[in-house]
């Protein structure tokens, strides 16, 4: 529809977005793998999702293709549903355990 937009956006190189998103994503992954508090892990997961959102939006804008942004909408909606369920689970555990440290949850062994 409008060829102008991508050009405006391209003043920031695509790589920057990719690097930024990858960095965010990596922070999220590292957080998930190293942190022991369920809420923090959960937030790291959200960080990963947001990294994806950034990346998709960037690609979408660069290609003047709305699909990527629509995808972002769906990710947000689904993430909301995930948040709902996830928080419910964490609240449930907290009420049983008074704690959200996943290390305490070792009744099921690896």
């Amino acid at each position, binding site marked *: 529809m409008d060829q102008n937009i991508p050009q405006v956006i391209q003043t920031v190189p695509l790589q920057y977005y990719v690097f930024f998103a990858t960095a965010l994503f990596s922070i999220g992954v590292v957080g998930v793998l190293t942190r022991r508090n369920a809420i923090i892990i959960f937030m790291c997961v959200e960080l990963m999702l947001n990294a994806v959102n950034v990346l998709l939006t960037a690609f979408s804008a660069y290609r003047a293709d709305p699909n990527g942004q629509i995808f972002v*909408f769906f990710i947000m909606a689904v993430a909301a549903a995930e948040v709902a369920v996830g928080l419910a689970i964490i609240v449930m555990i907290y009420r049983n355990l008074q704690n959200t440290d996943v290390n305490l949850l070792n009744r099921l062994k690896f």
Partner: protein
Amino acid sequence: MLLAVPTNYQPSDFLPIIVQFVLAIAFVAFAMVVSHLVGPRRKSVVKDEAFECGIESVGNARTPISVKYFLTAILFVLFDVEVIFMYPWAVNFRALGQTGFIEMIVFLALLMAGFTYVIKKGVLRWNEA
């Protein structure tokens, strides 16, 4: 392209927001710093206690609260996201025309079905549990 994007906006249109942000922070910081410098400081153990109408406070204040609040919060998250979905639709309402409207009716019907379910399930019955 599904979303109508006005053409005459530039990313740089958003720059003044920074200006306002700086102003807001400056004001708040000013207020905090001045009151910190001007106000007297007299600490005492009794004064530092939590104010609970003169009754001695018992236990930790960070106690679990009614789960209804969490439910409200979780429901808000879900419904709010659905509302967000409606923004692009609303903006493009005329372009999408009748089909768009019918689709949105379906969407709203589903949303309201969930809504009715939630209400019937007793989310708002505050005097229970």
